């Protein structure tokens, strides 16, 4: 598969669930994990100081000062070694820092993290932070494997993934009038093959981040042959043509979406010249045979 190379450098990690669905996680690298770690460190110190002072004060009041010191030291021991492990075990793979940074630890097979894994991977911080808390071991080990796993993660078979905070819009719509106008000029019988549909939507997703000249460069590879084929005038913008194709493929068509769009003047004669009707009744190109959708069984809820 051609995607092998892409997978090797991508930070996506695919998991097959018991439902036999493959879905992808975005792996968290050092730059996502460092802020979470620092937040946790701050919380640890804050909690430690508060508890230590509280314990000292309380046992000082009842004249057992040394017991207070001893208890404080035990608290320090527990927090420094088990803070993250206990949180990850109880909070489904998250510490407060990870929750703030929207990270989560899961098993490499997609299962939730087990308490043993949570504790062990955090005890092994002691090996990862060598030498002298510079975290060189952890960084280099993480750099050398695909899951960004430090030693603790390797031993426990865990990985840290990003939970996307904002849910991106489900599908981007093209609103440029020029594109909508062009969309009507595309012959109705033209079938967009599957890989072209993918290329179109990838392009439309990314074009806003590209400068104008770059857009033209990229779009001409597909735009030029399409323009020739459809017999569009040479001044047609390739960028807009691809947007139009995208709109045609995914949005316009059967349900008369294009009719809602403002119909620009002057489109009529070109369409006539091409011998194509702007509003197609024929099944639109590119879409797969319609399959019955699985429906939610709402009766269970009652």
């Amino acid at each position: 598969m051609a995607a092998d190379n892409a997978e090797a450098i991508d930070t996506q990690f695919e998991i097959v669930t018991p439902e036999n669905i493959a879905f992808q996680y975005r792996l968290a690298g050092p730059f996502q994990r460092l802020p979470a770690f620092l937040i946790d460190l701050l919380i640890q110190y804050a909690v430690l100081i508060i508890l230590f002072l509280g314990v000292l004060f309380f046992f000082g009041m009842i004249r057992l000062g040394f017991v207070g010191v001893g208890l404080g030291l035990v608290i320090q021991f527990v927090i420094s070694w088990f803070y993250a492990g206990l949180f990850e075990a109880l909070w489904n793979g998250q510490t407060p820092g990870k929750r703030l940074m929207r990270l989560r630890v899961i098993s490499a097979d997609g299962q939730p993290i087990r308490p043993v894994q949570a504790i062990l991977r955090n005890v092994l911080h002691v090996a990862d932070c060598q030498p002298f808390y510079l975290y060189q071991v952890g960084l280099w080990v993480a750099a050398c494997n695909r899951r960004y796993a430090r030693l603790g993660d390797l031993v426990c078979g865990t990985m840290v993934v990003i939970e996307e905070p904002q849910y991106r819009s489900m599908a981007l719509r093209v609103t440029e009038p020029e594109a909508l106008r062009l969309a009507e000029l595309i012959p109705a019988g033209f079938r967009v093959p599957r890989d072209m549909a993918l290329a179109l939507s990838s392009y439309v997703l990314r074009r806003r981040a590209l400068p104008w000249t770059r857009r033209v460069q990229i779009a001409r590879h597909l735009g030029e042959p399409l323009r020739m084929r459809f017999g569009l005038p040479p001044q047609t913008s390739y960028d807009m043509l691809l947007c139009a194709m995208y709109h045609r493929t995914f949005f316009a068509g059967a349900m008369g979406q294009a009719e809602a769009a403002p119909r620009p003047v002057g489109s009529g004669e070109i369409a006539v010249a091409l011998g194509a009707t702007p509003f197609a009744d024929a099944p639109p190109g590119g879409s797969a045979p319609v399959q019955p959708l699985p429906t939610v069984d709402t009766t269970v809820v009652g």
Partner: protein
Amino acid sequence: MKVVDLLDQRRENWRELETLCMRFEGRRRSKVEAETAVHFASLYRCACADLALADAYQLPPNTVNYLHQLVGRAHNQLYRSQGFNVGTWFDEIFDRLPRRLFHDGYLRLAFVLFWGFFLASMYLGYASDGFAERVVGEEALRKMEDDHADSAQGRDVDEGLGAVGFYIRHNTSIGLQCFGLGLLFGVGGIFITISNAVGLGTVFGHMATLTTETDFWEFVTAHGPFELTGIVVMSAAGMRLGFSIVATGGYTRGESLRRAGREAFPTIILGMFLFGGAAVIEGLISPSSLPYWTKALVATACSALLVFYFVLLGQRPGD
């Protein structure tokens, strides 16, 4: 059918699943009503089906991304981490672990290495001039001597409990470091075991050369068995982890490491119990004004417990 129609049709379900995810993320699973959970599961299955058919529907990539996230998020809520199960841990620690440790080559290696180097450096610290100073450092030795110079023993309970806290933190931390650093470079466990053995052995040897009065020997008697065994056990767990990278036993290195991690974990729990016990004895009994024979008795009892655990529980035939 166009993407728009499909999205319109499915959007409600996805939004509902999202809302439920948000609710579940914020609270305990036990507080979720059964009906909601069942509904959640069916919504999740539908989202899974949508994702599986995304290619057939020709959904644009960002819709597919959205579905990936949604399914991943719901998956995490559906298959949550299990809590601690105390019952199985009792069996693990008192039934399976001793039997495993009885046949554990790494424990034997750690035992031999630790006691071999301990006794050797004890002899060197005793017989060879300047050895202890070079190994442990002059300052640390003087401090050691001062700490144990006065035989005026007997702290009150308050002070003793404070000391227990200190020893729990200090000694168990050292034990966990023994374990964790054993992972380094595959053979780091050997280094850690030897360095601990040499350090401790030298101090013992040096203390034997002192002509002044010292309560050192009386002090170390009671908690010695637990503490030294604790170090050996932790080192052995670290060695198991580190060596698994080198000696994979036919597994891939990663898998070998994960297996070692699973096996090593109960050993650390045992090690922490040993250190905890040693800390209580070291804080309360070792420095107390109790006569020496009570401390010797405590040491004997501890040793007997260790023999019971490692040998009697260990040699039983497997099931």
